[in-house]
């Protein structure tokens, strides 16, 4: 028995180590599939500080980190791992990773690439249709009022989505999937992005204010960085106007949340759909009383299908990394 246990632990010692930070939600599905190939180190199950935990596991042997969006991989964290060569995040976003420091240290960073784009685009459209046609509001209303036999013609009318002018902020993989879906609703597409895209013919607007002035709806699909922080501010919200609708499936920090809540309360904007917030899981409580908002707990990519796909991708990337093969997805590090 002891010999068996010894053999097991010896075997574990031989496996390449992966330090799991967070952990990402997908880890619970990933672990059983790959624990025979990788030694997953789990500081979240330990009472020790991260530094103490890492020191206990022989830092020079730790070459890879697996993380999710809830753990900030800062320069301080990277400093604890002098041999680190790879940061793998189980997300599309990378704003929780110090990318400059990774470049400086020669550390590769990979995300999920375009794996989540369909699900996230679906969520964007779901929040938009729900918000404009009042689906969640109607479901809530019916469950609350039906026993009183409240006449159904008292339920307020919604807003038509088909044919509306939709402005996409960020025309990357997710933005393009959103465009494809909303075009099939007959929506008129225009966009703002870091650069004009030569491959598409939709009208490009240099500034988000200009985009908002010429649209009925804004869908935020861009990454969060220094340039895009609070890109949706009061000026943009007012430019969108009283009937306008904003959907955010990017990052909470893209919107000046305090300002948007204020504008919603003042009726300066028609409504909003949020999958992300500035300070998750904290949500401004003023939103809870509003009927013209749809609230989702950062679950745009949390489907059975995406999780199965991401486990396969992460496993594939780890296998490639530890056999010195090219990674399946990689992230551009800033210069």
């Amino acid at each position, binding site marked *: 028995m002891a010999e068996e246990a010894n053999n097991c632990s010896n075997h574990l010692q031989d496996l390449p180590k992966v330090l799991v930070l967070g952990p990402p939600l997908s880890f619970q599905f990933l672990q059983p599939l790959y624990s025979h190939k990788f030694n997953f180190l789990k500081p979240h199950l330990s009472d020790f500080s991260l530094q103490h935990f890492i020191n206990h596991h022989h830092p020079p042997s730790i070459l890879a980190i697996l993380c999710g969006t809830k753990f900030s991989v800062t320069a301080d964290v990277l400093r604890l791992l002098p041999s680190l060569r790879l940061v793998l995040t189980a997300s599309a976003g990378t704003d929780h990773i110090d990318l400059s420091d990774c470049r400086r240290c020669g550390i590769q960073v990979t995300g999920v690439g375009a794996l989540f784009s369909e699900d996230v685009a679906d969520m964007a459209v779901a929040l938009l249709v*729900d918000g404009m046609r009042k*689906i969640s509001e109607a*479901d809530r209303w*019916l469950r609350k009022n039906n026993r009183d036999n409240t006449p159904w013609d008292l339920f307020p009318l919604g807003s*038509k989505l088909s044919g509306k002018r939709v402005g996409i902020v960020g025309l990357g993989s997710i933005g393009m999937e959103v465009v494809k879906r909303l075009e099939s*609703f*007959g929506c008129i597409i225009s966009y703002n992005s870091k650069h004009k895209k030569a491959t598409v013919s939709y009208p490009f607007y240099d500034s988000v204010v200009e985009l908002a002035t010429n649209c009925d709806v804004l869908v935020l699909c861009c990454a969060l960085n220094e340039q895009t922080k609070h890109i949706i501010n009061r000026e943009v919200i007012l430019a969108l106007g009283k009937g306008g609708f904003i959907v955010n499936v990017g990052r909470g920090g893209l919107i000046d949340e305090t300002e948007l809540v204020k504008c919603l309360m003042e009726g300066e904007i028609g409504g909003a759909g949020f999958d992300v917030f500035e300070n998750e899981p904290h949500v401004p409580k003023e939103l809870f009383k509003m009927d013209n908002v*749809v609230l989702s707990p950062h679950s745009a990519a949390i489907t*059975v299908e995406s999780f199965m796909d991401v486990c396969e991708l992460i496993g594939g990337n780890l296998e490639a990394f530890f056999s010195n093969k090219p990674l399946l997805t990689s992230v551009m590090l800033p210069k």
Partner: protein
Amino acid sequence: MGSIGVLLVTPVLPYLEQELDKRYKLFRAWDYPETAQLLAQHATSIQAVVGNSGAGADAEMIEALPKLEIVSCFSVGVDKVDLEKCREKGIRVTNTPHVLTDDVADLAIGLMLTLLRRICECDRFVRSGKWKHGDYKLTTKFSGKTVGILGLGRIGQAIAKRAEGFNCSICYYSRTEKRNSKYKYYPSVVELASNCDVLVVACPLTEETHHIINREVINALGPKGFLINIGRGKHVDEPELVSALVEGRLAGAGLDVFENEPVVPEELFGLENVVIVPHIGSGTLETRTAMADLVLGNLEAHFLGKPLLTPLF
């Protein structure tokens, strides 16, 4: 025209009611505690009836209105009008096609997304503060699923077009196969249900399509299948649907219509795998106004002896 009597059988968009009142002598059915009383007093003055998806003109009413010339429906569905009786008596019938196609198709896709991605439940989850204690569970991806459409008319085709934007495969059942259609045809509803992930009802309600979604179809759709109804409540055997949902024999349902509106089966309120809304298919100001203009336009054309805008006959 102010002397032409028009009977409005049920409350509608205020704009429509106001315009009818301006142009005609308007009788509102709900002003009278008994229809019999209304008929006794005004039957011979009424030349037109305006109804909607909830109430129209049945044989009894038609017989009781000797001067009735036209029934103008504030809806595209005309299942609440006795069409045979109207034909028999030479009464014109109009409805509101085209103008609501987009809204109804938008809602159908909206119900699919809200249902599979559990948007209502997620919204409740956030509002209740539960997110602070953990994430919401995994939901089902919508993109790429196979959507089965029951009835490939204007609304069915509009739904298909939108679903294609999500990389969905489309299949359908119709009374007759549409020869120019690129979508896969199944000759029976059971076969359609067996071969799709999401089944949407988009056909008119007639004697043939009454309870077209029955136990056999629901079982064929199966425990991983979803039903969306934006047609009429009576398309579905409602008690069968409810028991399938409660017993887990169907993954979920998105319902805009019910057999006996405004009654909703009590059991549905306790389920998190249903999305229920109070018949809002055409419920936007833009569309209801366009529908109202069609009703008014049809009535005006009729009483001026001009061709009707959107007659059934």
